[in-house]
């Protein structure tokens, strides 16, 4: 590499903006070119995954190669696909027509704020599709043409769709600020669907979806492995608390079927959340069962296409029917709740063969789930706490000073805002909110949702997670917040590396990787529960960490 001359550097810096985007400065966004480089794209789907789903055009290809090996008539396929969807989804047609380009959404996206790439402004992201829509389908297309920003469907446009529909986590933060309620997430979904029609998709979505379809969960775990992993957690609980918990599997006639993301059964820190569930169910003597077939709460169909989403969602209900349970209880998952609240009813509902969920402990009937028959663990837990049915000792969480990250889907797609906070009040001595601009409906995404939680784009994830991490940094500095509570499995997997980068370990403990641990809400609940028959003066938390008790404190 040549020694850069100061003068050259100056030229570089001052006169060639857009180094960050690879685009030509001051040129119209339509004329800029999308450049794929290792690290800025998620790996394409393997041919066997594409075949498994029966999607077309399976082949080995890579986005950083010039030729994407598209079918000969790919333009026709895309345009026909768009036409079909415009007819099928009124919302899409509306979103294509009504944007006034007011720009209110422009600076609300974490991808834009973290990358500075203008095409990550929601308005421009949608414009990538809209420009083609206008060119092909809208009325004044012939008259105003390019002046209106219309453009034909070209390979470059397609490549742009791929780049930017996979730099959107479908979090819907932008829609909160749009005066017309335009949901750019749905535009992203459509772009991804259309891309699948010509065999353009990413592996990290299609493989988990295939696994889920085949074995029941994203990891492709077979029933015995699933069961075995949970038995390890049961052993850990015994060792830490001295209590035996009794999960059952595929038990017909149980009152409740409990479904959670499979990541909670496998990887840290989700497994500690799972231990929390097990302890609470034992505590209240819930008549529940787990299924080794419907062993996944997540639904990567949501990130693929509407048919796949329907199919994966239907599996939970088929299993509920087979087992003859009365209702469904769902664990701490993000997008599962979006599917459930926004799409389940029209896709697979109403689930008339089930009963409206009724807490066997408090008698509360959850009328909000009258049609889906499925409630969120936080709704269930908050109700138990309200009726004083849990024996809790918040001081067991004295070593934790949490803040709460609202996961996009539970917060924005189902309005689960107050229940988790109500639970936190009861299970920890103290916790702190992040800045109001970054929580509740306005929460910032973890930056890795919708199947973007894959390792090859780690740096991109660190960028898109910046707005979230930035708010955590503030409460860490101000209040000494040392843990980030949440109710989503993808958060648990992805906020951890985000914290490791933006809030690295400053303590003397070499085992720690960050100053802010990521923790599922139910872990905090489980850790605070005073169980019948537990060992006296319990000394360890669910992660085998040392507890600060009244004794050790003095």
């Amino acid at each position: 590499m040549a020694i850069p001359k100061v003068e050259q550097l100056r030229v570089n810096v001052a006169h060639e903006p857009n180094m960050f985007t690879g685009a030509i400065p001051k040129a119209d966004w339509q004329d800029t070119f999308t450049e794929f480089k290792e690290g800025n794209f998620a790996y394409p789907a393997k041919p066997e995954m594409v075949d498994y789903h029966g999607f077309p055009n399976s082949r080995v290809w890579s986005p950083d190669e010039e030729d994407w090996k598209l079918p000969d008539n790919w333009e026709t396929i895309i345009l026909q696909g768009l036409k079909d969807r415009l007819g099928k989804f009124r919302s899409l047609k509306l979103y294509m027509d009504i944007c006034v380009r007011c720009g209110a959404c422009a600076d609300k996206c974490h991808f834009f704020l973290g990358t500075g790439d203008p095409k990550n402004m929601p308005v421009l992201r949608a414009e990538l599709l809209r420009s083609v829509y206008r060119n092909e389908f809208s009325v004044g297309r012939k008259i105003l043409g390019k002046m209106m920003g219309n453009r034909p469907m070209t390979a470059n446009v397609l490549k742009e769709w791929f780049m930017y529909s996979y730099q959107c986590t479908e979090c819907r933060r932008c829609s909160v600020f749009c005066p017309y309620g335009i949901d750019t997430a749905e535009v992203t979904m459509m772009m991804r669907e259309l891309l699948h029609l010509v065999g353009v998709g990413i592996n990290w979505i299609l493989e988990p979806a295939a696994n889920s379809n085949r074995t029941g969960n994203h990891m492709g775990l077979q029933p015995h492995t699933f069961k075995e992993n949970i038995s390890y957690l049961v052993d850990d609980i015994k060792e830490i608390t001295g209590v035996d918990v009794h999960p059952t599997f595929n038990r017909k006639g149980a009152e409740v079927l409990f479904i959670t993301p499979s990541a909670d059964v496998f990887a840290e820190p989700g497994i500690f959340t799972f231990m929390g569930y097990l302890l609470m169910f034992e505590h209240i003597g819930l008549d529940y069962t787990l299924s080794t077939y419907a062993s996944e709460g997540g639904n990567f169909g949501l990130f693929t296409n509407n048919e796949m989403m329907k199919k994966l969602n239907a599996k939970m209900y088929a299993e509920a029917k087979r087992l003859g349970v009365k209702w469904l209880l769902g664990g701490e998952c993000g997008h599962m709740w979006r599917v459930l609240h926004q799409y389940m009813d029209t896709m697979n509902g109403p689930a008339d063969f089930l009963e409206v969920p009724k807490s066997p402990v408090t008698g509360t009937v959850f009328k909000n789930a009258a049609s889906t028959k499925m409630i969120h663990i936080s709704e269930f837990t908050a109700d138990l706490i309200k009726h004083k049915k849990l024996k809790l000792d918040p001081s067991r969480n004295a070593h934790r000073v949490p803040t709460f990250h609202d996961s996009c889907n539970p917060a924005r797609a189902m309005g689960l805002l107050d229940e988790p906070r109500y639970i936190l009040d009861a299970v920890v001595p103290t916790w702190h909110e992040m800045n109001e601009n970054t929580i509740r409906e306005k929460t910032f995404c973890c930056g890795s949702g919708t199947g973007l939680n894959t390792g090859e784009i780690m740096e991109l994830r660190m960028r898109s997670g910046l707005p979230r991490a930035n708010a955590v940094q503030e409460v860490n500095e101000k209040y000494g917040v040392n843990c980030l509570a949440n109710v989503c499995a993808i958060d648990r997997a992805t906020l951890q590396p985000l914290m490791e980068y933006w809030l690295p370990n400053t303590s003397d403990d070499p085992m720690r990787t960050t100053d802010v641990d990521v923790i599922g809400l139910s872990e905090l609940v489980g850790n605070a529960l005073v169980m019948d028959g537990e060992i006296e003066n319990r000394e360890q938390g669910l992660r085998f960490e040392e507890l600060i008790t009244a004794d050790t404190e003095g």
Partner: protein
Amino acid sequence: MKLQELLIKNRDSILADWEDIVLGEYAPETFRIFKKQKNRFANPIGHKTVTGLAELFDVLCDESAEEVDTPALIEMLKVRALQPITAAEALSFLFEIKILVEQRCQKQGMDKHYKEFLVFCARVDATALAMFSIFTNCRQQVYQVRLNEFKTGRNIITDNAKCSSQVVRENMKNDE
């Protein structure tokens, strides 16, 4: 007036220009937003850049200051360490300060400050080395984060959707 005084007196105007240069690396649409929005939560990159530059400027001006790695500058470099640019591109903004200061000196009649200016430039160069270390630390942190994924087993939910039995099966196949 000594150079030191000139720097202090022109602090705001120099910083404003410096911000324009650094934020001007982004596309024009982005620049407008990153420059205008002052709320740190609504504009983290803008905020980290502006505060980072201010701290860096103060370190450059204060001859007694020995530590370059001030908190806000580290944050600013952390942002840049994630951008898809080379190390040289990420750090070249530092040398802009020489030009900005030189412009102010010119206005005052450069001759008077010439020697002091050379000393200042040497300080900028030394700072560049320190900043390069900070930058490489940030890069290293990215790799560390990747490594942690594998150490904790989190990679099974962020890298490859494979169960252990599948891995075993594949290994057996490979052995055959």
